[in-house]
C-alpha cells in the first residue's frame, strides 16, 4: 500500500501553524487536507479511505476535545492526534482515554509528529488488512452451497468424515466430495487454516445435539 494514499487531516485555526504542519506532512510523503476551522472540518471531512486527524486543542469555535467527541459519535474510525499550545496533564489524560493516538505540545517536534502519524498509518493499515481479510473470507463463504457450509461447521468442530456422513444421513464418499469442494472454495489446504478463517469470520462450529 503506497503512503501517498494515506491522508492526514489537519485542523488548526492558526493559519501559519496549519500551513507549516501541512508542509511537513507532505514532505514526509503523506497526503494532506487542511481545515482552518473545526466547523469547516465537520462540514467537509471525508471519513473514507486511509487517514488520520491532527487536531488543535485550543480553537475558538469548538475545541479539539469536543470535536473528537463529535467524531466518535459519528463513528469515525480515523485515528486522532492532538496538538496543543498549552496542554496540561488532565487534558492529555482525557484525550488519551477518548482514544487519541498521541497528545503533542506545540512547538511540535517533527519526528514526534511524523512518528505519531506513522503509527496511525500502520494501525490503519493493519485494521484495513483485517477488514480486507474478513471480506475475502466472507466472499468465499458466500460461494459455498448450504450443504458445503453445513459440512464446514462439522469440519471445524473436529469431526471425522464418517461421523459427519452419519450425522447428515449420507455416505462418507459424498461428504468427502463436499469437503474437497468446500476447502478449495475457501482457499485452504488444512483444517487448522479453516478453523482460523471460520473463527475470524465468526462462523461457529457445529454443536452436537
Amino acid at each position: 500500500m503506497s503512503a501517498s494514499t494515506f491522508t492526514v487531516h489537519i485542523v488548526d485555526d492558526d493559519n501559519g501553524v496549519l500551513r507549516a504542519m501541512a508542509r511537513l506532512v507532505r514532505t514526509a510523503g503523506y497526503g494532506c487536507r487542511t481545515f482552518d476551522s473545526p466547523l469547516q472540518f465537520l462540514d467537509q471531512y471525508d471519513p473514507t479511505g486511509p487517514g488520520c486527524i491532527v487536531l488543535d486543542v485550543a480553537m475558538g469555535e469548538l475545541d479539539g476535545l469536543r470535536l473528537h467527541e463529535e467524531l466518535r459519535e459519528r463513528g469515525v474510525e480515523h485515528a486522532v492526534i492532538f496538538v496543543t499550545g498549552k496542554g496540561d496533564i488532565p487534558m492529555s489524560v482525557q484525550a488519551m482515554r477518548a482514544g487519541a493516538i498521541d497528545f503533542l505540545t506545540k512547538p511540535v517536534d517533527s519526528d514526534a509528529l511524523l512518528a505519531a502519524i506513522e503509527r496511525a498509518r500502520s494501525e490503519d493499515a493493519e485494521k484495513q488488512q483485517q477488514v480486507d481479510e474478513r471480506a475475502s473470507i466472507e466472499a468465499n463463504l458466500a460461494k459455498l452451497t448450504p450443504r458445503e457450509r453445513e459440512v464446514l461447521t462439522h469440519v471445524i468442530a473436529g469431526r471425522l468424515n464418517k461421523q459427519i456422513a452419519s450425522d447428515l444421513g449420507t455416505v462418507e464418499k459424498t461428504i468427502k466430495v463436499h469437503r474437497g469442494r468446500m476447502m478449495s472454495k475457501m482457499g485452504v489446504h488444512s483444517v487448522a487454516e479453516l478453523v482460523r478463517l471460520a473463527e475470524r469470520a465468526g462462523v461457529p462450529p457445529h454443536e452436537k445435539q
Partner: protein
Amino acid sequence: MSPELAKETDRLDVLSLRDSVSTAMLVALAYFVGAELAFFIGTLSDKIFAPFWPPNVVLFCVFLLVPMQRWWLYILVAFPAHIIAELGVGMNVPQLLVAFVTNVAVAGLNAAAVTLLAGGRPWLGDPRKALIYVAATALVSPAVVALGGAFVPILGGTIGSYWDFWAQWYASNALGSLTLAPVILTWLCEPWPPLSQTPEAQRSEALALATALVVVCAVTFAVGPGTAGNSFLPALLYLPLPLIVWATVRFGVKGASGAIFIVTVVLIWRTMNSQNLFTGGDAESNVLALQTFLIGLATPVLLLGAAINAIRSAEQTIRDSQERTAFAFASNHIALWEYGTAGERFWTSANCNAMLGLKPDVELTRTSFLGTIHPQDIAAARDIIRTTAVATEPTTREFRVTFPNGETRWLLARGYAQRDKNGDIVQTAGILTDITDRKAVEFEAELQRREVSHLMRVSVMGELAGAIAHELNQPLAAILANAEAARRMLRQTPTDIVEAGAALDDIVHENKRASEVIRRMRRLLRKGDSKPEVVNLNDLVESTVKLLHSELISRHIKVETNLGADLPIIWGDPVQLQQVLLNLMMNAMEAMNLVPPSRRVLAIGSHHVNADSIEIVVKDCGHGLAPVSTKQLFEPFFTTKDQGLGLGLSICLTIVKSHGGDLSLGNHPDGGVAATLTLPSRQIQTMAAK
C-alpha cells in the same frame, strides 16, 4: 463653693474694697484741694474768681473711670470734702446742699452721656467721640444742670439775675470739661509709649513747644492798661494759636489738651497778677469773657486733635494692615504687581524682586523681568504681559524663573486690565505666586501615578502571561514545522526548491509575527515617560484584541468589533490609552465567567459622537452591575471582584481625564455592562495626516 474659695473670694472683695476706699480717699482729697484752689484763685484778686470749678471735673473723671455701680462710694466720700471746703468759705446749709447735688448731677450726667453715647476709651480718640464729648459735657449737660446750679448764689443771698447766675454756672462747668478734664483724661488715663522709645527730637520738640507757648501766652496776655484800647488787641489773641495748632497737629489730642491747659493756666495767672485783656470790668464780666474766649478756643482745638488722632490711628491701622499683608504675601510666596501701559516699568510689592531672583535695588522693567525667565518659558511670560492688556477676563500663566545661582522656580502670574470710565485700559495689575512647592508635589504625584499605572500594567500582563505565552508559541510552532519541512525537502531528490523557499518565507513571516507579540507586550510594560503622540483608536482597539487573542479563545469569548470608518485620530499616550482599553476588555471578559460559553460575546464599537469627540463602547453580555453608584466604581480600592485591587477603573479614569475625556459604566438595555469611553478628537491633525 468650697470654704477655701469662699474665704479667698471674701479676701479679694475686701482687698478691692480696700483699694476702692483708698482711691476714694484720694478722690475726696482731690475734691477738697480742687475746691480750695478755686477759692484761692478767687481770693487773690478782686477782679476775677476761678473760671471753672475743679471738684466737678474731679468727680466727672472719676465717674468716667469707675463703673457706675461704684459711683455711690465716691459721692459718699466727696460729700464730707465738700462740706469741709464750703463751710470754710461760710456757705449756709441749703446753699451747700444744692451745690453738692448740682455738682454730682453735672459730673454724673457728663459721665453717663459720654459713656453711653461715645462708648469707652479713648474718649477723645476720634472726631465723632470728641463731638459727643463736647456736646455732652460742654453744652447739654452743664446747661441743664445750671438750671439748678443758678440757685447756689441765690441761696447765698447774692443779688442778681437768675439767668446771669445760670450763665456763670454753665460757663464754669463747660470750661472745666474743655480745659481740665481733657488733660486728665488724655495725659493721665491714656497710655504713653515708653520714654526710651520716644525719639529725642520729639521730646525736645514737645518741651520747646510748651516753653514757647508759656512765654508767648505770658507776653501776649500781659497787656498794659493802654493796650486795652489798642487796635492790635484782636491780633494779640491769635498769637498763641500757631503754637496751639502746631502742638495739636504734631501730638494729636494730647498736644491739644496740653496746649489748652497751658493757655488756661497762664491766662488765669496773668489775669490775677496784672492788667489783662479780661480785666476791664467787674469780676463776673471778666471771668465770663475769659471763659468765652477759652471755650471758643478749646472746642475746635480739641476736635482738631481728635481728628489728628483718628488720622494717626488710621495711618497706623493701614501700616499694620500693610505689614500684615506683606507678611501674608511673603509667607505665601505672593507678590503684587502693576504694569503701566505708558512706560515699561513695574510697580511691585517689596518681595517681588526676591521672588524673581533679583537684587532688591534692581528696577523692575519689562526687560529685567523677561531677563529672569527660563528660556523655554519666555513665550508664556511675554504672553501674560500682552494678553492681560487686551483680555477682558483675568489671565493666568505659569512659567519658570532662573535665579543667578541656577535655581529654577515656578511662578504663576495672574493679571487683569484696569480700565477707566471709558473702558480704556489704564494699567494691568495682578499677582505673582511662587508655585514651586505645588509643582514639586504635582510632579511627585504624577510620578507615583505613573508608577502605580505601570504596576497595574505589569499585573495585567501577569494575568495574561499564559495567554501571551500561547500567542508566542503559535508562530514558534509554525517556524519549527516549516524549518523541519525545509530540511527534509533539501535532503530529498529531486529537491523541491520552490516549496523550500515558501517554507523559508513563512519562517520569516512567523518570526515577524512573534516579534509583534513581543513588541505589543513590551510597549505595555514600558515604564517612564511616554510622550503624547498621534493615536488611531481603531488600531489601538485591534492591537488590544490581538493581545488578548489567546485569552479570549481560552475563555471561549467571541469578539465582535464594530469600528467606525474614517475615525479622526486623537492626541494621547498610546500606552496609557491601551491600558484603559485592556482594562475595560478584561473586566468585560471576567463579567462573562458565569455565562454559557456559546453566549459569550465581547462587543467593541467605536464611532464619532460629534465633530469633537470619539466614543468607544466596550460591552459584555454578563449579568450587569449590582446596584452601586457609578461614582463608587471609580473610587480607588473599590472592587466587586474577589481578588481585585480596586485600582483598575480608578487609574483608567485618571488616564482618561488627563486626556480630556470621560469614562462611564452602566448596564446596557440588552443586558451586560457597557463601558463608554469618550475622547476628544483632533480634526485639524486628521486633515494633516490625510
